[in-house]
């Protein structure tokens, strides 16, 4: 299994995937504090045209909270990028037939799938924590060092878990789909279903979407215990998806 993980790493670095991901995640990370920092300036630029239409702009103040608001607003982008990148993690190998040789060499299917899971989950965790969050955090501290932000980290971790949940779906669909498009479609359909279920007030606190509301925890409109049900359903879903994936992958024709 170590050999297969090594191969995954080699693939990420040599094909330039890792480089692209790093650049994108750093860009996303810089964007949040940068937009916050530039807001007053942008407002100033547009002041005249806005005032002509009858609105009056007062003094615009930005602080660390503006930056974190941007963070949550833009966090779907890193998720989208990692999902797009991961949609081919197994399907590309089905299409090229490379796994046939790995299987006939005697590596068990479970070890292959487990390696894929580890590499996808680790990539997301490291890129999200170290780059998306890390870069935003460092710049926000740098610009607004005196601002106090409460309960920041819990919300950050919740969003990370949301990403893990989506990736669990991607991996699950990768065991049945034949190409990356089908993986994205399957994941998209589940996402849409959850999206509509989220309109049912009673369900809201159980759905993974709640994990994206970390900002409200930081602002105080939601409490920690409001997240517990969603945390549990999401974690259980990730494990269940993983188990179903293993069963399906064992039976899959390569």
């Amino acid at each position, binding site marked *: 299994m170590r050999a297969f993980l090594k191969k995954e790493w080699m693939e990420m670095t040599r094909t330039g995937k890792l480089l692209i991901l790093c650049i994108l995640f750093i860009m996303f990370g810089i964007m949040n504090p940068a937009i916050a920092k530039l807001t007053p300036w942008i407002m100033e630029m547009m002041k005249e045209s806005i005032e002509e239409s009858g609105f009056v702009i007062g003094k615009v103040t930005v602080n660390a909270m503006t930056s974190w608001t941007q963070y949550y607003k833009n966090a779907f982008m890193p998720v989208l990028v990692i999902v797009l990148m991961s949609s081919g993690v197994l399907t590309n190998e089905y299409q090229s037939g490379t796994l046939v040789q790995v299987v006939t060499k005697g590596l068990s*299917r479970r070890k292959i799938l487990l390696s894929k899971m580890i590499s996808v989950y680790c990539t997301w965790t490291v890129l999200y924590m170290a780059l998306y969050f890390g870069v935003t955090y460092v710049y926000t501290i740098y610009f607004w060092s005196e601002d106090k932000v409460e309960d920041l980290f819990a919300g950050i971790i919740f969003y990370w878990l949301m990403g893990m949940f989506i990736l669990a779906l991607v991996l699950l669909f990768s065991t049945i789909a034949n190409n990356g498009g089908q993986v994205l479609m399957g994941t998209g359909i589940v996402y849409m279903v959850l999206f509509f279920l989220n309109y049912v007030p009673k369900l809201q606190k159980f759905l993974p979407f709640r994990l994206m509301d970390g900002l409200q925890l930081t602002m105080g409109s939601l409490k920690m215990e409001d997240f517990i049900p969603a945390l549990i359903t999401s974690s259980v879903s990730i494990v269940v998806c993983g188990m179903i994936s293993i069963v399906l992958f064992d039976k899959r024709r390569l």
Partner: protein
Amino acid sequence: MHKMNVLEISGLEKRFGEKQVLRGVELTVPEKKVYGFVGRNGAGKTTTMKITLGLLEADAGTVKVCGESAHYGNTKTNRFIGYLPDVPEYYSFMTPMEYLKFCGEITGLPAKEIKTRSEEMLRLVGLGEEKRRIKGFSRGMKQRLGIAQALLGRPKLLICDEPTSALDPLGRKEILDVLVAAKEETTILFSTHVLSDVEHICDEMALLNDGKIVMQGSIEDVKKKRRSNAMEIELEKASDAEEMLRVFGKGQQNKEPQMLTVLRPGTLLLGEPSMQPEILRYMADHEIAFARMEKREATLEDIFLEAIKE
């Protein structure tokens, strides 16, 4: 020590939707042989091989590799087998050496053995000096690398699916040479529709047609069984050939089947050996000169065509 069968397939059946691809395949491959697995495209060769490797599920029948049953999914019997797929694909970002190292590691060979064996195998297939990544490899190079990876773990059985079909004559010869060299240490089952390849390197063969083995045995046996008695008669003058055809071509009183048929312009084929004296007498009487007259050797091609017709 008694001779062991490396591969025993019996009663193998497989259907894809409406199409019954295998209808009870029986195949036995003895140790240390090069075994040719012949059949037309779509006859079921690849399907049989894939079932043996646990890549497809059989509907009925058993496959035993070195005495152990193979089954779909994770099959332990794959440790005995080296496999070369029809169109081998590799991780193109690796060099051949790295790929073999990767293969060795997932097979669980000791690190030291991997290194020496990889070098040995790459030298065997003529890729010893190749430092480039697999990305830019030609088909022939990929096939050769495929043999190297398949032989890496010293398999008891090497399964090659149409290893020469997509190659130019030179590439084909290289692969055949490598297979002959590999014969020293393993049993080879190789599928093909190129009969000259079978004649060149195989000890035994089986002919798969329409999902069944229609013929199986050593190359000599197969050829002997179907030795044809036909004579080829090449005449000096093409006009003589026409005359002979007019006299003997129809069969006497149009009752019997044709005795003489045209093989090529100027050359006739005599199907019925008992007619030989009569034909010769006619030629002597009419002063017809022949350039060549010989017994026709049955080629595998004839045997193949004949077996398929039935």
